[in-house]
């Protein structure tokens, strides 16, 4: 890992330890390659009420020039949220996580907040179209998937 990414992550980490916005918690950040975060929705959106979701951040040496790889991970008490942009294997389709939508000014905290608000604003209790097929056949890393952003209303 270049000192570039580590330096930035170290600074982010010390900031995160000083306090996080409500509904976002740091679970582990033992190295500068993979962090775990928990998020929950703050309002009482019935789709997500009472649930906590776990996010895995993976950082490449090019971070923050390159976006981190962010996925939801499933555990006994951490389901994958139902959302038309979130596949049931935890892969998220969000423009700001792709190289086109990403800005190096973004950080772990802003990504968590974006995901939080993405859930808050959602009213469709459904998976993306073709979810089953995708989950069964996808072997690619999220960043290599050619997502086609065709609707920005949700």
């Amino acid at each position, binding site marked *: 890992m270049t000192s*570039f990414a580590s*330096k*930035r992550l170290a*600074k*982010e980490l010390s900031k995160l330890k000083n306090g996080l916005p409500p509904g976002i918690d740091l679970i582990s950040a033992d190295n500068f390659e993979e962090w775990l975060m928990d998020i929950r929705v703050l309002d009482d959106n019935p789709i997500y009420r009472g649930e906590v979701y776990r996010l895995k951040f993976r950082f490449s040496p*090019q971070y*923050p*020039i*390159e976006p981190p790889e962010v996925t939801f991970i499933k555990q006994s008490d951490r389901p994958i949220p139902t959302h*038309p*942009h979130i*596949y049931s294997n935890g892969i998220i*389709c*969000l*423009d700001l996580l792709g*190289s086109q939508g990403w*800005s*190096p*000014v*973004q950080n772990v905290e802003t990504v968590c907040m*974006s995901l939080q608000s*993405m859930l808050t*604003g959602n009213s469709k209790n459904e998976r*993306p*179209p*073709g979810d089953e*097929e*995708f989950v069964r*056949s*996808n072997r690619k890393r999220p960043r290599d*998937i*050619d*997502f*086609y*952003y*065709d*609707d*920005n*209303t*949700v």
Partner: protein
Amino acid sequence: MFICTATKLHPSLPSPFHLPNTAAIPPTTRKRKAAEASISSQPTEALPNKRVASAAKSKAPPTPVTTTSNTMDSEEDFMSAMSSDADMQDFSGEEAPSYPFTYFDDDFDDEPDPDFGVLKDSGSKKKVAYDVSFQVYEPADIQRQQDDMVNEVNMILDINKEDAAILLRHFRWNKEKLIEDLMDRRAKVLEAAGLGTDVNTAPKLEPVPGFVCDICCEDEEGLETFAMKCGHRYCVHCYRHYLTQKVREEGEAARIQCPAEGCGRIIDTKSLDLLVTPDLADRYRELLNRTYVEDKDTLKWCPAPDCQNAVECGVKKKDLDKVVPTVACLCGHRFCFGCILNDHQPAPCELVKKWLKKCADDSETANWISANTKECPRCNSTIEKNGGCNHMTCRKCKHEFCWMCMGLWSEHGTSWYNCNRFEEKSGTDARDAQAKSRMSLERYLHYYNRYANHEQSAKLDKDIYQKTERKMVELQRESGMSWIEVQYLNAASQTLQMCRQTLKWTYAFAFYLARNNLTEIFEDNQKDLEMAVEALSEMFEKPVQELCDRKLKVVIMDKTSYCNKRRIILLDDTAENLANGATGGTIYDYFAW
């Protein structure tokens, strides 16, 4: 936020069937027939030509190395008599056939004299219907065109060159629209192009007291920083890193935005030069050049590996059903300007796309189905018999029938499990119905197999040519012919390649063709060309000892020239009908298949 559908998630299932197809007419039979037909007719046509050719040769020395203008002239004659390479490649300059445009049956004696005696630069040049005009540009030309346009905008609008370039790219090099829009609403256009309110200050690096970089969180004293006119300031290291990532990894150039979230400001050349290493700046310029070609609808890159040229052609997308715009790059690669695929004359792009898709989906599967299955006589479900007796019960409609005769099982009486009956009505009816439903499949396979055969043969011809180059050297040694004199093999090889490419696509084309008189003309043309090509292909494969025979050389040269002519006739005729069909009548109407 965006909803998404993941595209190309699962490649279409690989076809599990790779069985030899049984429906094809064995190509060897066809080849032999064609060859016999042409060889038997050779002596009559070869005689007069030989005379002409030898006359030409007597004028030119066997090894034309002299430089007097006199011998050069005769050498030119000589070269034209051999249908030289240039002749083969440069089809834009190809002249129309000099004889009346008639269709004749496969009687080779009707063949007019090939190139011999026809002056190359006669004034009777007629543009053949399938020709499109195009222009090839090398990298320097592309650069110059951009520079010219930038300079022009720079002068007319009094905008500095960097900004003019950004604006032109923003307007996809539509200069007229740029000028008009900029006159009308300058501020808005500049903003949209990422230029904002223009302050004429050169980009510079500067340390800013109390600065913290939002990207690396560095706050060191005296840290050099940079900001574009949008004011989003980052340290020089992060900026450099960001630009390197964009240019080197993501291949972006013309639309690299400010690193700040949501800022649409586009980085200009001067700022980039200030921030990055020279080799990255070179790469950036290369990519910028590329966007010029990609932005203009009339320009396309030559798709050949390592070729840096671009081709300009005025054929519009909406005309692609009427013309097949085949262009040839300076590198020798011939491709379709409409879809960038290899030359696919005479079939139009849309049809090619359909056909390729069909082949990718169907061909092997269809072969297998044809060889191994039958349809249920009642519901037409495709059934594979994978063992057991002849008593079939359709899983779908529960119809009971005999696998052998396809007749009702109930009529089999006591001859259980051993169908020896024939000509029962129910059986013949069922077989008729099946034959009909099979016909479409067989029809497809008919065209596909011929298409695939030419593709395969073209590959083989190419291999043979590579051997032929050695052969040409050998031939020189054995026969005492000069290098120039053995070039006819090269010409023959190229003709074979090109004609096979055309023939291949005639089969895809024919598959989609409705039956009428014109189809028959088309098929006659196709047959003519095919027979000639097969004959040439056979001669081309002969061993060196036989090739030493100068008679054979003349025959091959004749056949090469004849193939070229037949190809032109076929393409010309088809292109004409295609153009007419799209404008007026219903000459070539494809039916939905």
